[in-house]
C-alpha cells in the first residue's frame, strides 16, 4: 500500500512497524511492555504534548499510541493516534474482553479502514472471573483477522500474539460501506483516508483536498449495529447481582460516602507527599546534595575561577547552575515527582479518578468547569506544572483557561504545602484555619468570576467509568518510571533558565535594589520585613523556595499568616510559567502573572489590615 505517512517520517518510524491501538484502560501499555521488553523511547508527538512510546521487538519497531475510543479528530490524543494509524501497515488492536461492546467499535472502524491487523483479546482471565465467555474462534471468523487471547500482566498469550502478527490481514469491512469506499479511495490517498473523509474528518479531507463527507452518523450507526450483532454472537455473559465492586463504585460517586473517601485520599496523599517525601526524604536528599555535591563543585571550581567572581556566582553561587540547579532537581524535585507519579499511577490504574470526576461535577459546574477538571486539579496539588499540562484533557478552551488560572493562583503544590505546614507549626491554630479558609474562598471566588467573564461554552461531563481494579505494582512502577524520566528531562531546562535569571539579578545587584524598591509594598502595605522581597523573587523560581525564604525571618504570628497567604497566591514557579507560556500563549501568561501578583498583594494587605483591626500581634 502506498501510504503518505508524515507522522512516520516525523517520528523516524521505519516501514513495517507494528502499531498498537486500543481504548483507554485495556492494558495496551502492558501488552506493549510484554512485546518489547525493557528498552523503550518516549517522545512527544511533533507539535503536541501527546506522548508516543516506541520499542523494538526483534528487528521490528513497535509503537504505542494514546488510548482512543475511535479514529477521528475530536481531541489531541485522537489526532495523534489517527496520524500514526494512517501510516500503519500492520496493527495490533488490543481489546478488553470484558468490554467488547465498547472496544469492538474501534476494531470495526480499523477493519473498515482496511489496514492489516491482529486482535489481542486481553484480560481474558478477568472476563472469565466476571462470568463473560467470549467465543474466540467465532470472533476470529466474524472479524476476519487473527484473534489471540492474552493476559498481558501475566505474560500469557504474548508468544502466540507475536507469531500471529505475521498473519495480520484486513478485517471484514461493512459490505455496503466497502462499495462506497472503493469510490472514495480513488479520490483519497488510501481506503483508510477515504473512510475518514466520508466520516466527515475535516483535517484528513483538507489533506486530500476534498470536501469532508456528511456520513458520520450513518456510518457510526451502522457500525454500532454490527458491533451489537457481533457481541450478541460471541459473548455469553451471566448476569450477576450487584457485586461489592458495583456498590463501591456508587459509594465513590455519592456525596455522602464519596466526600469522606476523597478527603481520606487527599489526607493520604498529603501524608505521603507533604510529610514523608517533601519532609523526610527531601530533607535527606537535599541535605546530601548540600553537604557533599555543592562543596565538591565549589572546591573543584575554586581552582579555575575566583570565588565571589561573576563566573563563580553563575556556576556555583547561591543560585548557580552547577549547585542550585542539580540540588533542586535531584534533591527536591526527583523524590517529589517520583512519589507523586507513583500515587497517580495507582489512582489511574484503580479506576478511581473518573469517579471523583462524577462526584465533583456538581461543584465544578458552578466554576465553569465539569467534573473532568478534578484530574488536572488533583495533579496541580502535586505540581502545578503537571496539572497545567493535563488541562489538555478538558473539552473546551474556556475550561482550559479557567483550570490553568485556578491552579496557578489558588492551588498550592505539594512542595509548597510541605513548607507551609512546617511554618504553620509556629502559629496558633486559628491562624492555620484562617489560611485554609482564605485559600478555599479565593479558589471559589476566582472560579466564579472566571466562569462569568471567560467567553465560550463549557462542555458537559461524559466520562467512561472503567472497572475498579487493584493496580498491579509492576505496571505502576514501570509507568511512573517512564513519566518521571520524561518529566525530569522537561524541567531541567526550565531550571537552568531560572537559575541563570536569578544569578543575573544577584550579580548585577538588582536583588538588593528590588528590596529597596519593594519596601513600600513589603514593609508599608504588608507589614513584613524588607527581606521579604527576596522571598518573593525566590518564589518565582519555586513556590516552596519562596515560602522557605520566610523560614529564616523572625516573624510574628500575624506576619506569618500574611506571608503564607501572599506567597501561596503569588505567581507560579518558573517551570509552570514556562509550561503555561507553551500551552496558553504569552498574552494569557502576562494576564495571569499580573492578576496573581496583584491579587496576592491585595489580599495579603487586606489580611494585615484585618488583623490590625482585630488587635492581632
Amino acid at each position, binding site marked *: 500500500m502506498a501510504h503518505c505517512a508524515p507522522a512516520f517520517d516525523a517520528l523516524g518510524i521505519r516501514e513495517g512497524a507494528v502499531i498498537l491501538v486500543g481504548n483507554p484502560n485495556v492494558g495496551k501499555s502492558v501488552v506493549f511492555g510484554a512485546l518489547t521488553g525493557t528498552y523503550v523511547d518516549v517522545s512527544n508527538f511533533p507539535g503536541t504534548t501527546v506522548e508516543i512510546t516506541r520499542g523494538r521487538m526483534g528487528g521490528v519497531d513497535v509503537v504505542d499510541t494514546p488510548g482512543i475510543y475511535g479514529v477521528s479528530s475530536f481531541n489531541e490524543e485522537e489526532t495523534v493516534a489517527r496520524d500514526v494509524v494512517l501510516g500503519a501497515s500492520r496493527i495490533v488492536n488490543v481489546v478488553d474482553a470484558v468490554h467488547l461492546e465498547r472496544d469492538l467499535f474501534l476494531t470495526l472502524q480499523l477493519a473498515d479502514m482496511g489496514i492489516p491487523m491482529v486482535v489481542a483479546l486481553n484480560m481474558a482471565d478477568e472476563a472469565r472471573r466476571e462470568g463473560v465467555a467470549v467465543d474466540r474462534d467465532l470472533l476470529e471468523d466474524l472479524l476476519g483477522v487473527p484473534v489471540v487471547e492474552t493476559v498481558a500482566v501475566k505474560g500469557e498469550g504474548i508468544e502466540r500474539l507475536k507469531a500471529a502478527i505475521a498473519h495480520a490481514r484486513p478485517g471484514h469491512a461493512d459490505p455496503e460501506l466497502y462499495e462506497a469506499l472503493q469510490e472514495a479511495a480513488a479520490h483519497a490517498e488510501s481506503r483508510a483516508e477515504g473512510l475518514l473523509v466520508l466520516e466527515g474528518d475535516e483535517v484528513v479531507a483538507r489533506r486530500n483536498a476534498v470536501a469532508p463527507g456528511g456520513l458520520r452518523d450513518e456510518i457510526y450507526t451502522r457500525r454500532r449495529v454490527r458491533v451489537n450483532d457481533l457481541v450478541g454472537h460471541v459473548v455469553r455473559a451471566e448476569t450477576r447481582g450487584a457485586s461489592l465492586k458495583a456498590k463501591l463504585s456508587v459509594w465513590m460517586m455519592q456525596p455522602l460516602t464519596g466526600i469522606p473517601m476523597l478527603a481520606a485520599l487527599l489526607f493520604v496523599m498529603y501524608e505521603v507527599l507533604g510529610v514523608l517525601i517533601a519532609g523526610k526524604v527531601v530533607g535527606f536528599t537535599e541535605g546530601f546534595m548540600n553537604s557533599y555535591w555543592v562543596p565538591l563543585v565549589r572546591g573543584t571550581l575554586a581552582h579555575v575561577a575566583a570565588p565571589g567572581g561573576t563566573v563563580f556566582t553563575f556556576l556555583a553561587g547561591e543560585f548557580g547552575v552547577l549547585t542550585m540547579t542539580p540540588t533542586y532537581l535531584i534533591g527536591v524535585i526527583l523524590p517529589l515527582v517520583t512519589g507523586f507519579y507513583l500515587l497517580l499511577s495507582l489512582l489511574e490504574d484503580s479506576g478511581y479518578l473518573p469517579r471523583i470526576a462524577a462526584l465533583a461535577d456538581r461543584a465544578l459546574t458552578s466554576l465553569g468547569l465539569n467534573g473532568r477538571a478534578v484530574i488536572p486539579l488533583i495533579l496541580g496539588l502535586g505540581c502545578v506544572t503537571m496539572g497545567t499540562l493535563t488541562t489538555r484533557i478538558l473539552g473546551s478552551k474556556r475550561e482550559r483557561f479557567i483550570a490553568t488560572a485556578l491552579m496557578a493562583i489558588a492551588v498550592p503544590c505539594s512542595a509548597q504545602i510541605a513548607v507551609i505546614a512546617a511554618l504553620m507549626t509556629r502559629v496558633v491554630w486559628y491562624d492555620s484555619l484562617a489560611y485554609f479558609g482564605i485559600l478555599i474562598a479565593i479558589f471559589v471566588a476566582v472560579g466564579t468570576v472566571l466562569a462569568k467573564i471567560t467567553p465560550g461554552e463549557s462542555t*458537559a461531563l*461524559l466520562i*467512561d467509568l472503567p472497572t475498579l481494579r487493584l493496580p498491579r505494582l509492576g505496571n505502576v512502577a514501570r509507568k511512573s518510571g517512564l513519566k518521571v524520566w520524561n518529566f525530569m528531562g522537561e524541567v531541567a531546562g526550565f531550571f537552568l533558565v531560572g537559575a541563570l535569571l536569578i544569578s543575573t539579578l544577584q550579580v548585577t545587584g538588582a536583588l538588593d535594589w528590588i528590596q529597596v524598591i519593594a519596601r513600600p509594598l513589603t514593609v508599608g502595605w504588608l507589614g513584613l520585613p524588607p527581606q521579604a522581597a527576596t522571598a518573593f523573587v525566590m518564589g518565582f523560581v519555586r513556590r516552596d523556595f519562596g515560602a522557605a525564604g520566610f523560614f529564616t525571618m523572625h516573624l510574628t504570628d500575624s506576619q506569618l499568616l500574611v506571608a503564607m497567604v501572599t506567597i501561596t497566591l503569588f505567581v507560579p514557579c518558573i517551570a509552570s510559567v514556562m509550561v503555561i507560556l507553551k500551552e496558553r500563549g504569552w498574552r494569557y501568561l502576562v494576564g495571569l502573572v499580573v492578576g496573581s501578583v496583584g491579587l496576592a498583594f491585595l489580599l495579603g494587605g487586606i489580611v494585615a489590615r484585618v488583623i490590625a483591626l482585630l488587635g492581632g500581634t
Partner: protein
Amino acid sequence: MMKPAEQIETAVAEVQQAICATCTLADARAGQHFVVTGVGDAGARVTALRFGMAEGACVHCTARIPAGPIVLRSGRQEIAVGRELAKLIDVRRVIEGT
C-alpha cells in the same frame, strides 16, 4: 374551566410524567431501565455511539448523584453523564416485567 380536550391532554401529560414514558435522562432514578430514543448533542452522539448508548440502546441508571451526573450502565460499560447533557438525551422508560 378547561375544555375536555385540554383536560385529556393534561391527564395524558401527568400519566406520562408518572411512568416516564417519554422523558429525558435527567429524570432518571437509580434502578430504572430506559431505551435511548434520541441524543440531542452532536458531540455526545458520537461518544454515545462509541459506548453503545445511542438510539435504541437499553441502559440502566445505577446512580443519580444529587444535582450531579446520572450514572448509566449498558452491559458492562458504565458512564457518567453530566446533568445538563442528560437533559438533551431523550429516553423511554422500560418498566421491568413488561
